């Protein structure tokens, strides 16, 4: 049985990242893709916090602090773009949003 070592945390983090990546590729709905992207971001923060804890340094934690701030701003802008796109095209399916012009 593995103990909850640094390896276990990083393994979990990479696994979450892989699941998020699968979602980004497989889903067709822009919002679902965006949720999967956020999942990938959270997985990376988990790795940073684990490294920080096991090395006794503060930098990873502070970086996660910044990542949380930037992610909040990023979600707001991304969702505003999706809403603007929906108003223009009446769809959020990526296979229908395949042209930059109409």
């Amino acid at each position, binding site marked *: 049985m593995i103990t*909850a070592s640094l390896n276990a945390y990083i393994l979990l983090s990479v696994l979450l990242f892989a699941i998020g990546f699968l979602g980004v590729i497989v889903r067709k709905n822009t919002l679902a893709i965006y949720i999967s992207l956020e*999942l990938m971001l959270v997985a990376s923060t988990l790795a940073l916090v684990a490294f920080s804890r096991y090395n006794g340094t*503060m930098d990873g934690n502070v970086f996660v602090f910044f990542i949380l701030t930037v992610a909040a701003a990023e979600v707001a802008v991304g969702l505003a773009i999706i809403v603007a796109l929906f108003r223009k095209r009446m769809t959020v399916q990526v296979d229908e949003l395949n042209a930059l012009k109409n």
Partner: protein
Amino acid sequence: MADTLFFFLATFLVIFAVGAVLSRNVVNAALCFLLCLVGVSGLFALLEAYLLAVLLVLVYAGAVVALFLFIIMLLDMKHPTAWNTKGFSMISSVIAFGLLVTGVVTFASHGKLASLPIDQVPAVGASLNGYAYQLFTTYLLPVQVVGFLLLIAMLGVIVLSKKIDGVEDAS
């Protein structure tokens, strides 16, 4: 005890991550993502980063997922959406996911990350003191930049969601 908690949270997390990624209904996906965030927050608490655990729930579970749910309700998708089942993208996604999983398995079986046992490393992230010191000394400039970034993001969102004369919406 900590190990049991870790495995419980890890299982919880993976189950709801798969749910968030694969559920057909976007509302279900968002709620699964919310539970995922709760699991990650528990892991942060297990890693003794209490401030980050609280912030994750406040910022992500409180604001981001709520925003997602608002937008999902606002857009009101008619049909629950399927997955990308066109041949080419399906094959490429399976290959890419297989490569990632192979990487993970290789990592799990061969990788040895050198680190001391956790009880010999001081939990520097446990107190607010460390964050405050770092944020007001080493990371003072990034804090200011992030403040401006938030302001600019707010302005950008207002501009993006404003109706501009002459630009017509599809009806």
